[in-house]
């Protein structure tokens, strides 16, 4: 298999006495949906924040295309092509859905200092924004202010903003949270279509969704990895069954 686009090796993060992420190793490969599951407090969101550069690791390394990265910052990860969504929708409330996506698309455009060029007439970003909205099915809602969108639409906007930056790696933090069955199905279909040429990390609680769409599953508990591998292997793993005793996987 091709080298991992984004890889974590022995990644650890401590908060005072608490070890939130304990020597976690993880590979994200192109063309793969890698799901990350675990109970609340297992360290999933912390791991995403580490990979996205929002938090600094206490120890361990993160590599992009085989090259280890030092001094990670969110903007640097994003420029490398690692896009992320947030667990709680983190959009620009006063802007419209379209403007949210356009601003996202403008993030990686060159010549930011070209102050005489109007942002509204920027064809590159307008096209990228329209395409991103269309992919998540929000085109009809482009003019609505982000604060006026329904919860499900806002989750969709989260993904659209991430897509507008044309990322190679997507780190998705519970994109299905609070969505109904139909909306969830649409998002899952979207994820399958996005898989080509990209690596996707999907943190989720919805087990049906995870097993329906994931190529690889990693299970975390108390900060460390319990098991990792193809869905069937994980489903039958003893440690996983013990941790999820009583839950139907």
């Amino acid at each position, binding site marked *: 298999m091709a080298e991992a686009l984004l890889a974590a090796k022995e990644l650890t993060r401590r908060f005072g006495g608490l070890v939130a992420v304990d020597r976690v190793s993880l590979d994200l490969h192109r063309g793969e949906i890698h799901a990350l599951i675990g109970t609340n407090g297992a360290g999933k969101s912390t791991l995403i924040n580490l990979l*996205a550069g*929002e938090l600094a690791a206490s120890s361990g390394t993160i590599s992009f295309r085989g090259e280890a990265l030092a001094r990670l*910052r*969110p*903007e640097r990860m*994003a*420029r490398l092509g690692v896009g*992320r969504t*947030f667990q709680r929708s*983190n*959009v*620009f*409330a*006063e*802007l*419209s859905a*379209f*403007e949210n996506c*356009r*601003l*996202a698309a*403008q*993030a*990686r*455009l060159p010549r*930011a*200092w*070209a*102050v*005489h*060029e*109007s*942002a*509204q007439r*920027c064809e590159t*970003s*307008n096209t990228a*924004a*329209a395409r991103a909205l269309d992919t998540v099915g929000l085109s009809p809602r*482009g*003019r609505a*202010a982000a604060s006026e969108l329904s919860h499900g639409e806002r989750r969709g906007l989260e993904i659209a*903003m991430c897509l507008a*930056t044309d990322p190679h790696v997507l780190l998705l933090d519970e994109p299905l949270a609070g969505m109904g069955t139909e909306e969830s199905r649409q998002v899952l279909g979207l994820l399958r279509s996005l898989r080509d040429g990209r690596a996707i990390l999907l943190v989720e609680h919805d087990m049906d969704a995870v097993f329906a769409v994931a190529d690889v599953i990693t299970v975390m508990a108390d900060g460390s990895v319990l098991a990792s591998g193809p869905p069937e292997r994980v489903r039958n793993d003893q440690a996983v069954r013990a941790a999820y005793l009583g839950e139907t996987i």
Partner: protein
Amino acid sequence: MSKARPGLLLLALFALVALPALTGKFYVELVAKIMIMAVFAMSLDLLVGVTGLVSLGHAAFFGLSGYMLVLAAPDKYAAVSLWTSLPLAVAASALLALVIGALALRTRGVYFIMVTLAFSQMVYFVFHDTRVAGGSDGTYLYTKPQTNIGSWATFDLANSTHFYYAMLVLLILSLAFLRILLASRFGHALRGIRSNEQRMRALGFNTYAYKLAAFTIAGAIAGLAGYFSAVQFGFVNPEMLSWHQSANVLLMVILGGMGNLIGAIVGAFALVLTQDLFSSLTKHWLLLMGGFVIAAVMLLPHGLTGGGLAWRNRLRGARGG
């Protein structure tokens, strides 16, 4: 843009153009002063209203520029050329803003407010405590800058009416420049930073660089205003750099409404006229001023022009694509 707005702006512009023909020297000089303050306020609006950076030390850049003008004269009575001394003064303010910004922007929120205040105090003390330009007494500008280009005598800064129209041109050009800036990708990014800086970084924007650029540009424009303020008064003293001056201009921005530049202009007019009114009423006019400040902030949180709200509505009216 709401329908009333362009019409009102044109009317205001017409009134400003016609003013010297309609009133005497006192009002011409007063309105010229207000227009200078309006440029100063717009520069702060770029920081506070657009980028969300509350600076309590903006007077440092205003005052430094005025001092540079006075210091640029080789001897007390010689006149400098506007065309060489103005770029020098503005560049000095921009450089100071770059240095202070580079350090201050390492902090956030409340720390940033206090740090900008403290840095501008440092600049204040440089001019207050040392022998540079007269210390706490200040220095006079004995001759206004010359505006000759070669042998062509363009206009006379010592003439009130010429000076007034020069300030009107300055105001219009500054407003135009800032409007273009705000409409660009750079300007949109600044607004994004104010709205949600964390998201901006997660999208790939180097927000520190954007904030520093905005801080420097704002400092340069403040320097532009400070230069002409020194020209008009013919006098510079450390009070130009004081935190009272910083609080004053901040008040103009919030009074007028933040984020749309016009608010800063409205705020400058409202505040200076109010100060003039109060000071003519009583010796203890600062008491009225204090009460006015408190009332204005409590009752008009969005300022006279509705500030942020107007921007939101305007954006909704202009769709991309």
